[in-house]
């Protein structure tokens, strides 16, 4: 796509520099820390899955023990390796013993070298495992292809994974290229990953390893049926962000919602916790070939999309910069963007095309996760269906990468089976009808669109420089994003954050870092 907005490349470069400084200082802070969820994720890489009889995941039981024994700051690998060596069992067996109170996490071992060696070997297998999963995905796509761009992304959210697979199949037959299973309301606040095939969610379906597998299998089947690889998306978000990434990488999820700030802003998760978690989590996604989707689109549900447009852009720069530093390729970074303008505003579509085009031109290698109208959707399904059609048009006119389909029933319920069907039908029709419109048109020199984009870019630079001065943590305290202010020590999960001791050891992380560079 030829650039149309004549953006000032120097300002874009300055934004990137400012974002780099911000994320360097964040990572300096977080590199020095670990969290209960990073350690649980590490355990899961080593093979600690399943739950204790009361349903608590074994990984949680082990880390609870480590917390009690004050061992977390050194990393779980060494103590857990010792426990394995002592029990003579595999990771799962050992964890079960610990969970049952029949074993503990030894603070010493006479041959720590041997422990380290065997944990390192396990880690290697684990990391190779997820690399292999990524290869499987690549081969699948190689063989079947994955369809045109933008990828058409729809949600399923019945609360019951079995019902979800049916709906996913119908959606795939109608042209969906990505199926996102929306999570149970407030799952992000759980400090554990539920076990089993869960069917009782509200507003969404519990994310669990079994549910991931069940849906991936269903999508593999339908991929063969439609002759096109259908991607699966879930959330690496909330208090279990790193674990979710691990489960996603293991079960071949292809996309995960994963944002450095969403949990802080919208779920009141402590900022130290989420920013520390995001680094590990993205490292896993990087190796697993998972595309992450950031959450800037959410800002515009609370803030005004015209006035706060630059906050979206600023946050995209920060998310990009953090993600690149954690090892993700630009192509793996789906940046959140949304069409949330009041549809009754004059020239709304003109302004939106400018915004959407701007996002594409500034992040040409990263797909934009382009979100449909939500907050201005009403119970008027006919009007809503047209709003969604305009959104599809803006999307194809600006060459977006991931197109999240709007549903005419957005203001009512999570989608019914035909809501998705009709949305896919309409979106495909609009996109096909306007397929090369973008190639056909140029933007006027001194028009509304170019001016708008230039202004938003200027404001984003100003914001990034101002964040750079005070640091991201202060910026969050000052309510610079989404009209929400959070405190450094407030919110959920700070008690799960630990400063790493000097002898902190995590071979999984080390190997992931090596894998990501190769």
């Amino acid at each position, binding site marked *: 796509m030829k650039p149309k907005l004549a953006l000032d490349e120097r300002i874009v470069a300055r934004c990137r520099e400012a974002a780099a400084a911000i994320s360097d200082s964040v990572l300096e802070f977080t590199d020095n820390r670990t969290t209960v969820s990073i350690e649980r994720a590490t355990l899961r890489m080593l093979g600690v899955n399943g739950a204790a009889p009361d349903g608590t995941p074994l990984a949680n039981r082990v880390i609870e023990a480590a917390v009690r024994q004050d061992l977390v700051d050194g990393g779980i690998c060494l103590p857990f390796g010792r426990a394995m060596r002592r029990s003579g069992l595999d990771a799962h067996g050992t964890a079960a013993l610990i969970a049952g109170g029949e074993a503990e996490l030894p603070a010493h071992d006479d041959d720590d070298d041997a422990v380290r060696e065997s944990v390192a070997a396990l880690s290697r297998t684990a990391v190779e495992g997820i690399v292999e999963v990524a290869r499987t995905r690549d081969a699948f796509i190689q063989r079947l292809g994955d369809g045109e761009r933008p990828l058409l992304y729809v949600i399923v959210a019945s609360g019951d994974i079995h019902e979800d697979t049916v709906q996913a199949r119908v959606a795939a037959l109608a042209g969906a290229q990505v199926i996102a299973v929306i999570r149970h309301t407030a799952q992000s606040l759980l400090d554990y990953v539920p076990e089993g095939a869960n069917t009782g969610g509200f507003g969404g379906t519990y994310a669990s390893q079994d549910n991931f597998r069940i849906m991936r299998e269903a999508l593999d089947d339908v991929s063969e049926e439609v002759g096109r690889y259908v991607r699966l998306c879930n959330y690496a978000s909330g208090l279990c962000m790193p674990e979710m990434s691990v489960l996603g990488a293991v079960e071949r999820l292809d996309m995960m919602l994963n944002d450095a700030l969403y949990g802080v802003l919208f779920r009141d998760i402590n900022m130290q916790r989420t920013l520390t978690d995001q680094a590990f989590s993205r490292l896993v996604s990087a190796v697993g070939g998972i595309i992450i989707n950031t959450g800037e689109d959410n800002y515009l549900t609370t803030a005004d999309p015209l006035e706060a447009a630059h906050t979206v852009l600023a946050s995209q720069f920060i998310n990009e910069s953090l993600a690149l530093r954690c090892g993700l390729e630009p192509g793996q970074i789906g940046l959140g963007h949304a069409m949330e303008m009041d549809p009754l505003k004059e020239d709304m579509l003109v302004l939106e095309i400018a915004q959407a085009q701007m996002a594409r031109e500034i992040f040409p290698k990263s797909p934009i996760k382009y979100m449909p109208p939500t907050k201005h959707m009403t*119970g008027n399904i006919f009007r809503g269906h047209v709003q969604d059609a305009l959104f599809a048009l803006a999307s194809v006119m600006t060459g977006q990468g991931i197109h999240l389909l709007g549903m005419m029933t957005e203001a009512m319920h999570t989608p019914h*089976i035909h809501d998705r069907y009709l949305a896919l039908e309409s979106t495909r029709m609009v996109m096909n009808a306007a397929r090369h419109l973008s190639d056909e048109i140029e933007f006027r020199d001194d028009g509304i669109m170019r001016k708008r984009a230039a202004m938003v870019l200027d404001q984003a630079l100003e914001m990034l420089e101002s964040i750079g001065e005070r640091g991201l943590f202060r910026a969050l305290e000052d309510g610079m994003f989404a009209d929400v202010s959070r405190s450094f020590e407030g919110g959920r999960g700070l008690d799960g954050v630990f400063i790493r001791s000097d002898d902190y050891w995590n071979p999984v992380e080390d190997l992931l870092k090596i894998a990501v560079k190769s």
Partner: protein
Amino acid sequence: MKDDMDQESGRGDDPGRVRPYGDTLNDGAVQVSFTLPAPLSDEAREGARRLAGKMGLKDVTIYHAADMGAGFSYYILYGRCTHFVDMGRIVVPKITTRTMTFSQINDFVLQGGGRRIRVIGACTGSDAHTVGIDAIMNMKGFAGNYGLERYRAFRTLNLGSQISNDRLLAEALAFKADVILVSQVVTQKDIHLGNLAELVDMVEAQGIRERVLMVCGGPRVSHEVALELGFDAGFGSGTSPLDVASFIAQEAVSRGLIAKDAS
């Protein structure tokens, strides 16, 4: 949610008790919209809700209500349908002839020196929509399939539109038609039903009903209704000329219409 549906509670995997589906089997999800001749008010809204209740919907939510002015208000609502249908019991009359290919049809009719079937067609009454009948009869056909004119097996005469039943009958007699094709597109106030029934009566009065195949078609025509009206078949939206040609060929042959006099 499944359980409190009511006594009629069906099971979707049981064809005897099928009800609408939103995202969970048997949730009964139905979308409804209509206008009431009443200005928008809390009472009118409640009226809309009650109407939906009378339709057998539970948990009715009015998601959109608009005052249109001049004493009208519009509603979009969703509810859960408490009714079910017994799918197992449904029997629908169908056209049972198998669809053949272009050359199969020609061969089938003309084999052993059979004569061509004479087909006359028209869009009758005040109806001026020719596209449908042309799609079936014209050379170029419809959606990639040739129309009847193209077949060696048929001799055709397309009278076009706005043809009175009188004239159609007269032309059919003159043409010695074996088959009469009638198209009806305008269906407002059921104008087409009267038109079609009248033609059947006239053909019967003429005493030739046994000797002609009568076929009607149009977007609101169904085979079932066609049979009720006394036609031999009815074809609806999206009909391919191939379906019609196959039907005519097989029926004309099996009824011996073209055996009688070899012209």
